């Protein structure tokens, strides 16, 4: 792009807000406690699952919350995208990027825990079952989000296209999930979900602790990400101005 002598819009260097550090630390600490609780209750206190899954069922206390948090992250990106298209404020774009990044991270974790579970419970490393497959596709899809961002030079265009894509991708996730149910049952009818009839109270405690913990973990990490993005932007801004 032709760099012309146009002046940069005057304005305070840091209009971005870096989320308060103290609150973030508190949130992450709470998340840590809850997850530890889930671990303890789930693995030691709650009874071993009566079905064929046995001990391996306990990974569910992490697997399911991670999955739900990934979807939450994509949902946040979806809302951020809508807000960006509506208002054009850069902070919504930053929120979107951070949310998608975390969503990808959690999706990868879903697959890792899913693979571990599959191996422990049925002896297979991978199964083409609806939930795992949906997350695999989500990983590929949201990975494409970053490829798209990388291919656009102009910042506002980049944010616009990324927002469009985040909207399309989020709408596609449930569609993908329903489509995978069309697949014929394979050799191993694997369903990664709570087995047995209902959950014991102790199971429930572990599960809810896991859910709350993961969600708080997401929020804490999101705040950290936003802070980093804001500082990065500020650095870029300073470099740009000094370069004049």
């Amino acid at each position, binding site marked *: 792009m032709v760099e012309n002598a146009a002046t940069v819009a005057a304005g305070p260097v840091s209009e971005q807000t870096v989320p308060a550090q103290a609150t973030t630390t508190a949130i992450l600490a709470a998340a840590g406690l809850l997850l530890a609780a889930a671990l303890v209750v789930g693995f030691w206190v709650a009874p071993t699952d009566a079905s064929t899954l046995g001990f391996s069922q306990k990974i569910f206390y992490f697997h399911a919350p991670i999955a739900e948090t990934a979807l939450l992250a994509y949902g946040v990106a979806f809302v951020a995208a809508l807000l960006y298209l509506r208002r054009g404020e850069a902070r919504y774009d930053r929120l979107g990027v951070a949310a998608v990044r975390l969503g990808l991270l959690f999706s990868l974790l879903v697959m890792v825990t899913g693979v571990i579970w599959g191996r422990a419970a049925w002896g297979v490393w991978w199964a083409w079952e609806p939930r795992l497959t949906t997350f695999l596709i989500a990983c*590929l899809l949201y990975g*494409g989000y970053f490829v*798209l961002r990388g*291919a656009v030079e102009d910042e506002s265009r980049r944010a616009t296209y990324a927002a*469009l894509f985040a909207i399309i991708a989020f709408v596609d996730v449930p569609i993908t999930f*329903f*489509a995978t149910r*069309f*697949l014929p049952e394979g050799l191993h009818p694997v369903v990664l979900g709570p087995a047995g009839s209902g959950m014991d109270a102790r199971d429930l405690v572990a599960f809810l602790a896991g859910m709350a913990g993961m969600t708080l973990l997401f929020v804490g990490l999101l705040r950290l990400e936003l802070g980093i993005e804001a500082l990065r932007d500020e650095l870029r801004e300073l470099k740009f101005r000094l370069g004049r």
Partner: protein
Amino acid sequence: MGFRQYRAMVRKDLLSELRTRETVVAMFLFVVLAMVVFHYAFTATGGGTLSFYTGGMLWVVFVFGALLGLNRSFAHEKDEGVLDGLLLCPVDRVTIFLAKMTGNLIFLGLIQVVAVPVFALFFAPHGMVAHLATLLVLIVLADLGIAALGTLLATIAMQTRARDLLLPIVFLPLVIPLVIAAASGTGALLSGGAGAPGVLGRLLFLLVYDGVFLVLAYGTYDVAIGE
């Protein structure tokens, strides 16, 4: 007025294509070549015929062939910088979308008209002629989805740096649900006929899929095509 513009755009794209014949010929050759490659790739292992996979293979071939065509759908405009000319016109952006989508649909349809008989010739799948009507409905519904999604994404991709590379990356994950429904539907149809369990479900799914992406395109096309 909207229709006059729509017709003018579709006619222009068809006329351009007729003059150069670049896209359609390439798409057709690709589709046939792909079928041949698939045949050799899968039978070379000594596993017998492809009959188990035929329903699916047809769709893999169409989707990748469609990608070729989609990449080109804005090629004229972008390469020659004529997109501005289009954007200067007092035309609804959605009308542009519909016209482009129609063009893509026509190209895809033309390819399929020739490719499906070739496919039947190579692989002689049972039940194809018998259930042709339902198969056509399925193909039309799937084509609509490919065209709608593809046109929307091609619009975005063509304005980026890595446009030929980017389109497959964003298009393929999003088209997977369509492939699943179309392929499994084709398979069920060929083996069990129109009344086979799940065929109707898949047709309905395709209908919903088409609807969702058409609505998305309608809502976002202003933004997707330009400032």
